[in-house]
């Protein structure tokens, strides 16, 4: 292989560059490994070991520990009223936070992806704050904002509005912490889509609302679903921020992650793991959903690509 061959990746006619590059990378990788036959197996073994130690073992441990004292204890732990109220609260918080972030995420990503305006980059950076700030600090911000010592505190107290150490506070911090998921998933999809399809719809007489429902939304639906799934996973699993504002009132302001912590601190290990296994199950369901979505999208894309480049397309 001479120099010019090296620079130009082998192209397959009719295939996009990406495929050609990938083929090229695979071949070069294969060459490196062929000169070092053990390398491939050592690399695979390392990756598998790492995966097992850090991902599979902990997950299995949760279920093993949960079952250690048998079904009866497991059942008692998850059916106990405090656990049930934690499940209900967790689902309630997710049921409020996810739709809020869904609506807000669509609006924000649409503005950012489709329009140029002053402060656009600042807004983009602001959206990432919940990701970059530690959740505990997020919780603390809300305590400082609405707590008894804050400026708003006395006013809230006077009007008998309880935010902190109550459900509204938990919902607020969860919305805050999970805000970037939908936006971050949608912006690249919407940017890729561009404005032209929407402008076409408008020129064909569609109203803004019709354009949004019939053109914008169908094009981003997979990205949107993906964002919602991630947002939901985080909303149910959030610990730090919720812990700061919840007040840990058993049966009232305890979400599932908080309940697990309480049980653990009270040395009820089996019960703690039993409740944790519920959360883990929710996470697994989320993962399966996410994977099947990815698979669906990839299949749709591949089907689209294979059919590309049909007849020349010139009328007789």
């Amino acid at each position, binding site marked *: 292989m001479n120099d010019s061959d090296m620079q130009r990746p082998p192209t397959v006619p009719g295939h996009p560059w990406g495929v050609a590059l990938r083929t090229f990378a695979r071949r070069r990788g294969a060459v490196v490994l062929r000169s070092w036959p053990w390398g491939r197996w050592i690399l695979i073994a390392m990756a598998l070991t790492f995966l097992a130690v850090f991902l599979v073992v902990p997950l299995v441990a949760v279920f093993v520990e949960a079952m250690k004292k048998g079904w009866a204890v497991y059942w008692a732990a998850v059916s106990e009223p405090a656990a049930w109220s934690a499940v209900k609260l967790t689902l309630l918080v997710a049921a409020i936070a996810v739709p809020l972030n869904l609506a807000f995420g669509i609006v924000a990503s649409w503005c950012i992806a489709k329009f140029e305006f002053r402060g656009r980059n600042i807004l983009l950076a602001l959206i990432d704050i919940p990701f970059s700030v530690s959740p505990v600090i997020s919780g603390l911000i809300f305590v400082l904002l609405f707590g008894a010592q804050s400026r708003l505190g006395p006013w809230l107290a006077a009007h008998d509005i309880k935010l902190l150490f109550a459900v509204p506070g938990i919902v607020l911090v969860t919305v805050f912490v999970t805000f970037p998921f939908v936006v971050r998933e949608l912006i690249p999809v919407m940017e890729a889509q561009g404005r032209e399809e929407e402008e076409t719809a408008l020129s064909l007489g569609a109203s803004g609302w019709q354009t949004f429902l*019939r053109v914008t939304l169908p094009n981003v639906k997979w990205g949107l679903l993906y964002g919602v799934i991630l947002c939901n996973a985080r909303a149910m699993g959030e610990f730090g921020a919720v812990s700061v504002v919840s007040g840990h009132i058993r049966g009232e302001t305890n979400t599932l992650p908080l309940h697990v912590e309480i049980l653990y601190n009270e040395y009820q290990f089996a019960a703690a793991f039993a409740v944790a296994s519920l959360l883990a199950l929710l996470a697994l369901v989320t993962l399966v959903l996410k994977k099947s979505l990815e698979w669906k999208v990839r299949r749709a894309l591949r089907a*689209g690509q294979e059919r590309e480049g049909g007849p*020349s397309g*010139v*009328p007789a």
Partner: protein
Amino acid sequence: MSIEVRNITKRFGAFAALKNVSLLVPTGELVALLGPSGCGKTTLLRIIAGLERAEEGSVLFDGVDIAGRAVQHRGVGFVFQHYALFRHMSVFENVAFGLRVRPRRIRPDEKTIRERVNRLLSLVQLESQSHRYPSQLSGGQRQRVALARALAVEPQVLLLDEPFGALDAKVRGELRSWLRRLHDEIRMTSVFVTHDQEEALEVADRVAVLREGVIEQVGTPDEVYHHPATPYVFDFLGRVNVFHGRWLKGLQASGSAFPADGPDEAGTVFVRPHQLDISHQAAGSDGFPARVRHINPAGPLVRVELLSEWGQPVHVELSQERYRELGLARDAQVYVVPKEMKVFEADYAI
């Protein structure tokens, strides 16, 4: 419906995309906006469509100012360079879109929609593809779907933004003459944007040549090609040799004489490659010596690249017969003789 653009000015930040542009497109004509990228042609088209707002000036349809009318209510069909088909809809649904989104009281019933869409699909010769999705079509087919979709709402005006820009040369050429035939059939006032001078000259009734936000010349293809108003238009419409020089009882351009009359000041000579001839002998004071550098005999004309004595590359196009007659070879010393040319008095740099 006629389109009139009056004194339009548009800025993007500090950049002036259009400077006081006026243009009249008479009813039923096909007008090309021609210019290099960044000259403001697409911006002008988008302002006519209502997708962009001008700072100053007005757009009139049949003499009526439509400044207050949103894009939905202007009755324009707009076709984008990259088709902008709705990728989640079939070809049929793409074309039917404009009818389906109408308010209920003016929406045609399903049967009428079906009939009209099928009629349009047969107009663009895609009836057999109606159930397919955009990703399953070739570029030329997609652009025809985009055209059928724009026509479905029976627009008063058709606006096309580089309609063939994303297609390969062969398909582009064929689609071009097809568009011309289609326009002769439906006679809809149309404006299309292109940077391809050949395309503009071939398809349009009239061509408007733009440069840096200003219209340099408007005229029939014949006018702008044979009687360019400015050096820029001359240069943009086809290949050209440029000689800078001074009037001195004929033009002494770059040390060589050109048989032309004019005042005693700087001037520039424009000669198209086919307006130059090559000979082995000096023909009086006309012409100048040059050396053959490269010959490309493929195609209807033979393209010869020469190097003049003062080091300027010169392009000449000869007929195949003339080329054989001359028996040219690389590095031959010959004379370049202008047959006709255009002289612009002010010195003009390209």
